[in-house]
């Protein structure tokens, strides 16, 4: 082969390699785009909710109040009769079957929404007021265009009679959409239109805080000791190998550990962020220790020598120079470890966080859900409303992960100092 041929061959090889790289990168980008597009197209509608405007007659005689009307007496009052009477007026019904169908246009919480409106506006008593009431999941999906209307009636969840009412209401401009604050303020529910991620958000928040409090100091101390102070011998080698092994242990094993030790032996409260946080911090510890040690190792030995040579003790050298220089890597390692913990599902299922919890937890020892488990729970539900809720939750979870990773990158760039 002549020199020129070899040269051409070399150029061709380089070109080929670049092309392979380009193809793999574009494949990755395409898949990410498909994923994001899929989630957004399914989930974006979850951020709005369909409301039906109803003229409510706040007839005090229907409330059967003994005491004078004030906020407290209203809170105890039974609004069911009042609510049903007003709702049934939106369309004529000829029998009780049709009346039931009318009521099913609304979310089961209509009674409380009507009550809450009066509690907020007590001066409306004995008046007829337009009140916006959350529509049922079926009407919500119909309004969002997710239900095909041209199917035969027996294959539809909305009857012809209900469709007529809906069309009538649309004509009268009684149906409108508003921002779905329930998605963020409510806990889980059997009714998709009333279900929110408020509970799982708080659960995830408490879990991550506990995980951070437990794993960050332990991981930092362990990595500083192992990297800077521990003698290099068989025992530390053994510990190092084990830390690396623990980082590779499937997360569900940590769930079993939490179930076996924390719940069975120590009898911690089941399905709580406390147990979840402890379990996840066990999982996160090795995953934080490894990047922490790597960033300590990356501090050049010349800095250590410089400090030692002016008479700094080992302790001073480590804490005045090495640790501050390693901080950016340490912090971003910690945040990425926590981000992994935030998205972890399997161990939480084992420690009972998969339970159906309606209440929003107010402390780490209250039963609670968490974001990834909420995704898992809702993805199993049949209702169309939960499909968009699932995607919306995934969007929130991805949002948090992206924010955490950005913080990690930002911290690394902000505090990174150049040396030699």
């Amino acid at each position, binding site marked *: 082969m002549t020199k020129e041929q070899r040269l051409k061959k070399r150029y061709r090889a380089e070109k080929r390699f670049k092309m392979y790289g380009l193809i793999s990168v574009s494949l990755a980008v395409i898949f990410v785009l498909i994923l994001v597009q899929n989630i957004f197209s399914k989930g974006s509608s979850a951020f709005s909710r369909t409301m039906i405007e109803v003229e409510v007659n706040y007839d005090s005689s229907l409330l059967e109040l003994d005491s004078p009307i004030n906020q407290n007496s209203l809170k105890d009052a039974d609004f069911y009769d009042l609510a049903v009477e007003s709702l049934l007026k939106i369309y004529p019904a000829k029998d009780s079957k049709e009346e039931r169908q009318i009521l099913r246009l609304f979310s089961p919480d209509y009674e409380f929404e009507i009550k809450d409106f009066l509690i907020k506006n007590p001066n409306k008593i004995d008046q007829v007021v337009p009140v916006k009431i959350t529509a049922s999941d079926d009407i919500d999906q119909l309004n969002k265009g997710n239900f095909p209307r041209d199917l035969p009636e027996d294959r539809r969840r909305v009857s012809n009679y209900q469709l007529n009412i809906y069309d009538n209401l649309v004509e009268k401009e009684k149906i409108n959409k508003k921002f779905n604050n329930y998605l963020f303020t409510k806990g889980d529910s059997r009714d998709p239109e009333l279900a929110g991620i408020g509970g799982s958000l708080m659960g995830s928040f408490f879990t991550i805080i506990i995980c951070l409090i437990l794993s960050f100091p332990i991981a930092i101390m362990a990595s500083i000791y192992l990297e800077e102070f521990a003698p290099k011998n068989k025992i530390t080698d053994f510990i190092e190998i084990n830390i690396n092994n623990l980082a590779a242990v499937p997360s569900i094993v940590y769930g079993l550990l939490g179930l076996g030790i924390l719940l069975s032996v120590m009898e911690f409260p089941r399905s709580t962020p406390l147990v979840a946080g402890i379990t996840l911090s066990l999982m996160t510890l090795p995953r934080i220790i490894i990047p922490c040690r790597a960033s300590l190792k990356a501090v050049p030995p010349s800095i250590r*020598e*410089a400090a030692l040579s*002016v008479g700094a*003790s*080992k302790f001073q050298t480590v804490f*005045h120079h090495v640790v501050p220089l390693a901080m950016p890597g340490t912090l971003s390692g910690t945040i990425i470890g926590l981000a992994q913990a935030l998205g972890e599902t399997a161990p939480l299922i084992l420690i009972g966080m998969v339970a159906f919890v309606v209440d929003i937890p107010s402390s780490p020892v209250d039963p609670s859900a968490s974001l990834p488990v909420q995704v898992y729970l809702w993805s199993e539900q049949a209702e169309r409303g939960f499909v968009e809720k699932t995607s919306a939750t995934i969007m929130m979870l991805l949002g948090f992960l992206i924010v955490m990773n950005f913080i990690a990158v930002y911290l690394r760039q902000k505090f990174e*100092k*150049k040396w*030699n």
Partner: protein
Amino acid sequence: MELNNSKIKIKAKNLNVFYGKKQALFDINLDINQKEVTALIGPSGCGKSTFIRCINRMNDVIDICKVEGSVEIDGAEINEKNVDVVTLREKVGMVFQKPNPFPKSIYDNIAYGPIIHGAAENKDQMDNIVETSLKKAALWDEVKDRLNEPGTSLSGGQQQRLCIARALSVNPEVILMDEPCSALDPIATAKIEELIDDLKKSYTIVIVTHSMAQAVRVSQKTGFFHLGKIIEVDSTEKIFKNPANKMTQDYITGRFG
């Protein structure tokens, strides 16, 4: 030896150093005179650096390194367990092959040593220490207007003088220099050599160098190391003009190494 009118500052007796199973230094006996520059020359890997790292016990930080024998400074043994290395290193400063300023401001680079030793009581005293150290290292005029800039923003030669100033800031008696000019250009080297010449009035200096011209220029006494053994020690003039040992002769004339 000719230079017996000088007082001996550092005395190494039967010094053996091991890295794991490998022996790096064999029975080193070397006297280093006070307020004089002693140059250590020899081919790479001959143990010069290992030797000077014994003088401030920097070898302690290497786990596998074991030092046997004795090093005395002013007649006091430093290789004993109860000797505090922090106090020792306050007395014996060191400048390294590659300039290694802390990634902090020029001021903080100098102030760090005095801070940990509690040498200054207030800001004025600290300013004073920083100024005198930088002046001694002939760097003051170049950096006095930018003391808050990072030390790493200086040029290589300036960084090395900053490191010398840092070593001077804790008032040492001995300064060890491990090839301080090997990463510098000739002009910066000339400045450092000039500085060394100046510093020997007040400090005992031990310098490891690969440049025989440098040894001739800055030192009064030269030791030739080869394969972990000290081959010949004498006045610099004698070593370079009329060495007693054939191997020294071969090395300085460039036949090996």
